[in-house]
């Protein structure tokens, strides 16, 4: 609908500062997970004095079971290109990259077609729409490392280096790709830009809660009747998402927990189902918004096993650069293995909490800082399950195969 009309209107009628003003008014926050205000990020890059600036789109969607970005890239790649071009105009960049994972061949193909079409139509490339503004976009394919979704690792990967994060500051907005000021935003964030430009920041800010504006796409998965992608206004409750949109739990089983935010998010129990979904309340509950994964679990799930599964993912996706994440995730995973096979001790539980706190506090990047979330949130809401595994060597959901339990029953 109205493809590239927002870009053309922006180029004709708006000055770069007015674009940023509209972005700030919209209250849009980064949809990749951290929720940094997009207008603020853009204005930092716009203010930076540098002959070269970049716009980078993070399309390295790595959360298991999440495909929000994939659906946008495969169905409407032009919208992302348009959002990037508007961003480039706003900050004075003339070159951009889309870092898309190679596991999305259809998205890559359609992006290539969309870029070629836009260049032919004069909507990307030199002198866009007959103005003096030029913007070139190229693709970079990710090699399948989860950590490359972290912005500094992603930029290192584009530069051809090993995909490992570096300490911030300096933030990419000050020193990003090839040490130039860089906007780096997620696919969904850029896709939100054209409608904001067409209808104004105030229109967008009318949707959502006080500090989380607009809509968010979630990938609803797990034990619900209706799985798939949903776009909902910020502030909707978890109950509405799971029980109404998701159609409840199949087979008449009981809802147990919902895991939000991908492998480094937390598990939220039934008593918090009426919490509104926004950046603040999810953080308050020990989880994160993340990029929008939402996995529903019923009573047949063992929460210790769930924590172990996500910790294994984070352990194998850690880049190995900083010591707390590299060794800490491995030690936590091995500890969870001991608890789930019946050889855990009460001392393990104390050490487990200390290690989670250490990894969360001292890791270099967001991967390590959020990796303990599944363990910490399940310890907070489902501690009794850990205790049952340790004290009576039994798994309440009968998921874990405990050595000693088998011996006892024989």
């Amino acid at each position, binding site marked *: 609908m109205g493809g590239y009309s927002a870009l053309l209107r922006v180029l004709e009628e708006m000055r770069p500062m007015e674009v940023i003003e509209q972005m700030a008014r919209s209250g849009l926050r980064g949809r990749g997970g951290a929720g940094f205000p997009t207008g603020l990020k853009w204005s930092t890059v716009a203010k930076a004095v540098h002959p070269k600036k970049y716009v980078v789109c993070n399309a390295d969607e790595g959360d298991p079971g999440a495909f929000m970005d994939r659906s946008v890239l495969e169905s409407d790649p032009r919208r992302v290109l348009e959002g990037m071009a508007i961003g480039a105009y706003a900050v004075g960049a003339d070159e951009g990259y889309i870092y898309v994972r190679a596991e999305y061949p259809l998205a890559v193909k359609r992006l290539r077609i969309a870029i070629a079409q836009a260049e032919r139509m004069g909507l990307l490339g030199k002198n866009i729409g007959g103005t003096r503004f030029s913007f070139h976009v190229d693709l970079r394919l990710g090699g399948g*490392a989860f*950590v490359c979704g972290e912005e500094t690792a992603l930029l290192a990967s584009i530069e051809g280096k*090993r995909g490992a994060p*570096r*300490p911030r*500051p300096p933030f990419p907005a000050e020193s990003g790709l090839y040490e130039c000021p860089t906007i780096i935003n997620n696919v969904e964030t850029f896709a939100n830009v054209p409608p904001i430009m067409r209808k104004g920041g105030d229109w967008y800010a009318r949707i959502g809660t006080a500090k989380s504006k607009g809509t968010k796409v979630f990938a609803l998965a797990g034990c619900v009747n209706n799985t798939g992608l949903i776009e909902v206004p910020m502030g909707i409750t978890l109950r509405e998402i799971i029980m109404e949109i998701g159609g409840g739990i199949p087979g008449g089983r009981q809802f147990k927990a919902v895991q939000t935010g991908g492998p480094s998010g937390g598990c939220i129990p039934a008593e918090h189902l009426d919490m509104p979904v926004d950046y603040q309340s999810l953080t308050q509950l020990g989880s994160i918004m993340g990029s929008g994964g939402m996995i529903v679990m019923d009573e047949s799930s063992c929460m210790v096993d769930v924590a172990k599964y996500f910790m294994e993912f984070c*352990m*194998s*996706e*850690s*880049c*190995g*650069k*900083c*010591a*707390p*994440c*590299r*060794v*800490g*995730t*491995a*030690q936590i995973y*091995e*500890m969870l293995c001991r608890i789930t096979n019946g050889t855990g001790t009460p001392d393990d539980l104390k*050490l487990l909490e*200390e*290690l989670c706190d*250490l990894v969360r*506090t*001292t*890791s*270099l990047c967001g991967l390590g800082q959020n990796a303990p979330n599944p363990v910490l949130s399940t310890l907070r809401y489902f501690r009794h399950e850990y205790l049952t595994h340790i004290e009576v060597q039994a798994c309440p959901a009968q998921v874990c195969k405990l050595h000693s339990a088998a011996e006892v029953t024989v």
Partner: protein
Amino acid sequence: MTSPVRVKTLRINDLDVSAREDETVLEIARENGIWIPSLCEIEGLSALSACRLCLVEVKGSPRLHPACVLKVEEGMEVFTNSERVAKYRRMILELMFSERNHICSVCVSNGHCDLQALAQMLDMTHVEMPYRNPALSVDASHQRFILDHNRCILCQRCVRVCDEIEGAHTWDLMGRGINARVIIDLAEPWGASQTCTGCGKCVQVCPTGALSEKGVSSGEMIKKRQFLPYLTTMREARR
């Protein structure tokens, strides 16, 4: 006329200090005789912020900051040895000891090891988590040097000195997470390396017994690091 060098004043552990604006907290602490533990950091090489031992507390910030890359700011209040950071440092050291194999009594670097020295200085009395003891290889294919992965803590000093000072970039990393390890060229035996100049800088900067010279007893395996500040100073003077 304004001075080309601007000075910032800050406070480290109740001591007022002044620093050049481009200095890090670690540098200015050292200049003022305040010791902050560090391991991946070594004077003369770029900062990596990987070991996380130099984490310090800054008043008004809930997060901990690595002193090796933390730039000084006017009015900043830094605490280098609070109870909180001391506890985390000891645990990070324990994690490092638990990761591979660090049995000092049978190590060539016993008595000349940065990791061992830090454990003593930070009062690490025992390792609370289980030792992982993975079975890792030893590369003794080079004529003069030995690489023992079992002693490596992935500080990347060898990687950086080879790239930044020697300019050979023989060393790099491969593998992710707990499976990461240093490699020579494209994971080839050291003795077969086409790029290694045999300069030995990597061996001298290695904090542990992961890189050592052949044919020396543990009493003799003292790392000679004087070349590094010398070379970096000479280069800067030439610019």
